[in-house]
């Protein structure tokens, strides 16, 4: 038995540590620890729901729109507002822009470096790379000769920049399996993806003022009004992104996958999945969202989401007490104790800032895989068709999608789906504007109430709940996708989803456990999101603010 630790986990958002016991070359035990506490829910206390929709975006710089959206939905339920049709479409577009941004960035710029070795691309023959790209049916927008020259100049200088300390030589040089030509193609697409994720963010910037942290999404609708000069930009940007996604992402996935087929055999999590649903349809029903809500059990049987089935347990995290609370709730208090038991290298009973949520008393996985599986079970035509084609292309059954490679691959299906929806929504918006609909924002019916915003971030099921009295927040609770995925052991000692996924992963080199890293990245974890807290507003000292004015 040996111990293998990855800390920090890189190419994620936030701070994450993974510690593993390795027995006979495979992970036998795992502890996933979130490294940062900031205290979001306390900060929005006594502020307005409109303020909250802005402040909660700062949970995560990658998925701020989802937090604003979920918070706004909670606020609208508390306020008794049903948003206008235009606001629904514009918010779908804003959310979709963020999903595209996030998925493109994650696949190429974060996860792909576990599979693609840009240094190996130096050995490629650009002409062969061009042939290979044609054969694989992927895009050839970049000049492979110029790229190789650029990489050579970089290598010639000798400073490694973002490749410093890379694991390209892991597993005795066998970990990275791509042909140099495919490495060159994927490096070209890594650089194109940097541009395309920015292009997707540009759509969010157009609709939201800036990204990250958009400005226009507010309880009641949107502040953004589509004039013609904005609509033509929107139309053009959305088409450009679709064309790139369609010509590049799934072909690349299918080209890379055969070299890493082994990763279909491990990395399954707890085998239970939750999706709260995202992208509103006209009827605003959760089960009828473009990516619908649903819960899947171990046998992938589908059921509807029930709020009262959601609980959180504190006993293995750095919070006082070891109760299990049913949502919504507003009590818990942070208290760091220790990571290792004093004087030993044994992980303590409490070992993370992440709490332990459960659905129907059991841990569950959230994310792109969950959404796609639920959409498949709810017979969303595009998803059914694409998943069937995809599994056929890889020669696998749907069940094998529950693996490190499967989880990594199916998100490209979702990306293509959303890229196509964006085009539809732009058309829908143009039709609405043409038809004379000019309603974008509705005022509150009441300023006292409570509401839940069930929604999805790119990383999975997102839950915001707020109690509002006279326009001020009196209790706020957030459960974030990575809290589900990075959950520590539960009260019965069962692993959280990522911990469970790590069990059985082959580790050849405990210094560079590349397969564990691939498995962690397949979840697209975001610990910036995962750690936060609620507590009763008692026993705190306050300072009196010197100037009440907005102006100093």
């Amino acid at each position, binding site marked *: 038995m040996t111990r293998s630790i990855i800390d920090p986990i890189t190419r994620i958002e936030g701070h994450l540590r993974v510690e593993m016991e390795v027995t006979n070359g495979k992970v036998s035990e795992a502890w996933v620890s979130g490294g940062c506490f900031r205290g979001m829910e306390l900060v929005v206390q006594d502020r307005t729901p409109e303020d909250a929709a802005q402040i909660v975006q700062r949970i995560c710089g990658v998925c701020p729109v989802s937090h604003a959206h979920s918070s706004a939905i909670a606020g609208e339920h508390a306020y008794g507002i049903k948003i206008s049709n235009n606001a629904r479409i514009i918010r779908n577009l804003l959310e979709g822009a963020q999903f595209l941004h996030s998925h493109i960035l994650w696949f190429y710029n974060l996860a792909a470096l576990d599979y693609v070795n840009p240094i190996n691309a130096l050995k490629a023959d650009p002409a062969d790379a061009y042939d290979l790209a044609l054969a694989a049916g992927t895009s050839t927008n970049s000049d492979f000769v110029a790229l190789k020259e650029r990489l050579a100049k970089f290598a010639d200088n000798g400073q490694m*920049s973002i490749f410093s300390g890379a694991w390209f030589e892991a597993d005795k040089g066998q970990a990275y399996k791509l042909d140099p030509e495919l490495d060159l193609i994927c490096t070209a697409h890594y650089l194109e993806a940097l*541009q395309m994720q920015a292009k997707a963010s540009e759509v969010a*910037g157009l609709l939201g003022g*800036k990204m990250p942290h958009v400005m226009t999404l507010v309880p009641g609708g949107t*502040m953004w009004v589509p004039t013609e000069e904005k609509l033509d930009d929107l139309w053009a940007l959305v088409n450009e992104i679709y064309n790139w996604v369609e010509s590049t992402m799934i072909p690349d996935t299918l080209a890379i996958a055969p070299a890493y087929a082994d990763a279909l055999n491990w990395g399954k999590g707890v085998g239970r999945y939750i999706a709260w649903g995202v992208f509103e349809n006209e009827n605003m029903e959760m089960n009828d969202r473009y990516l619908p809500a649903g819960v899947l059990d171990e046998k992938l049987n589908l059921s509807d989401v029930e709020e009262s089935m959601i609980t959180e347990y504190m006993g293995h995290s750095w919070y006082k007490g070891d109760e299990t609370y049913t949502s919504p709730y507003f009590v818990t208090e942070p208290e760091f104790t220790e990571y290792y038991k004093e004087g030993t290298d044994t992980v303590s009973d409490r070992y993370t800032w992440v709490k332990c949520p459960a659905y129907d008393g059991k841990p569950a996985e959230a994310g792109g895989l969950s959404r796609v599986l639920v959409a498949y079970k709810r017979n969303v035509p595009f998803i059914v068709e694409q998943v069937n084609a995809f599994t056929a292309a890889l020669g696998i059954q749907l069940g094998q999608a529950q693996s490190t490679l499967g989880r990594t691959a199916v998100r490209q299906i979702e990306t293509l789906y959303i890229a196509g929806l964006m085009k539809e929504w732009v058309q829908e918006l143009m039709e609405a504007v043409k038809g004379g609909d000019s309603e974008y924002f509705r005022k509150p019916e009441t300023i006292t109430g409570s509401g839940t915003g069930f929604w999805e971030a790119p990383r999975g099921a997102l839950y915001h709940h707020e109690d509002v009295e006279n326009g001020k927040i009196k209790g706020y609770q957030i459960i974030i996708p990575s809290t589900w995925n990075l959950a520590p052991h539960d009260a019965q000692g069962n692993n959280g989803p990522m911990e469970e996924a790590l069990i059985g992963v082959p580790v050849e080199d405990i210094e560079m456990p590349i397969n564990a890293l691939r498995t962690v990245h397949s979840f697209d974890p975001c610990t910036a999101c995962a750690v936060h807290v609620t507590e009763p507003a008692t026993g705190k000292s306050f300072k009196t603010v010197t100037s009440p004015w907005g102006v100093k």
Partner: protein
Amino acid sequence: METEATVSEFQEMLSERGVTRRDFMKLCGAVAVAAGLTELAAPQVAQALESSVIGATKGNLYPVIWIEGASCTGCTESFAQADAPDPATVVLEMISLNYCETLSAAAGWSMEEAKEQTIEAGNYILVYEGGVLKNWGGQALRVANETGTDILVHAAEKANAVVALGSCAVNGGWMAAHPNPSNALGVQQYLKEAGVETPVINVPGCPANPEWLVAILVDVVLMQRLPALNGENKPSVIYDQTIHDNCQRRGHFENGEFVYEFGSPEEAMGYCLYPLGCRGPQTKSNCGIVRWNHRRSWCVESGAPCIGCCEANPMNPGQNWVEVNTPFYKRHRDLRVGDFVFQPGTVALIVTAVVAGALIVHGFGMKVSGRMDGGADFEKKRAWDAKHPDKSIGKYDDDDAKGGQE
């Protein structure tokens, strides 16, 4: 690296799809140029890496360590949206970004090793994103089994300069807002307490605009100097004027043309967002000039009032942008006394008073900014109101009404 097996797989793949290898001699001329460089480069890289994970310790690229403290990764994300130069050019041709939690290929110990070797080699810039958390002896933030505070001090001590990137790094940002549960503060203040004297460049904003960081990198890397800083160690070129000074809707402010409700016809005409709480008059930054996301738009252009996210006093976490500016869509901040929060005797919803107030606020902002030494001779009655008494929006007492513009 052994690639024979995979090469044959690809050849198989090619033939399966009915594609033969095309005559790549067509590309030969260009390939030869690249090949010449490659033969030179590959062994050099291999050699450099034998002794060090960061490769050469000196070269054409300026070494940079980018540490995420208590961050949302939003400032790294924002950097990924840089327009010109784009982020790939920055990390391949301007700086050697040896440690960056979001972009580095490395992970775990070799990542930490890259940081150590960079510190050891010296002559680097530290970019610090996110707040500094003091609670539980710094354990509110843990990386590689160390506290965030120790990591900051260690990396800052030998740096040529520290860029505190984003409002959280400048003074704790939203984390420092009441009740500041993790005891957050900014880099400059923490380093001062820790006795570290490395110069700090404060770049507030939530997130920081990527063009600001790139401008600073151009100063440091290409012009070998630090940017000119104001009294709060913020680059003067970015932070010495208000949003209002350069706002594209400023003309409508002067005309008294305002948006009173989100998503209204007035918004479609691009009127001024002042009555909806816009903090442009008191927030200092050049957002409206630099713009966001490849210069596509910015907050006010999209119809959203400025919420003052660049507000950050480096030496006072209590004066953070959330505490100073909430509620964002009212003209005045809430007053907090103990547990009790209220909106001060409110003129906020009375339109005429708001607009009259606008002038006072505006003038006050200009005085504070120091660009009008000895106090400005600004109009007591707006020129537009004087010319259009029947449509006058401001409320004036008799003397002012008689005097008009003095």
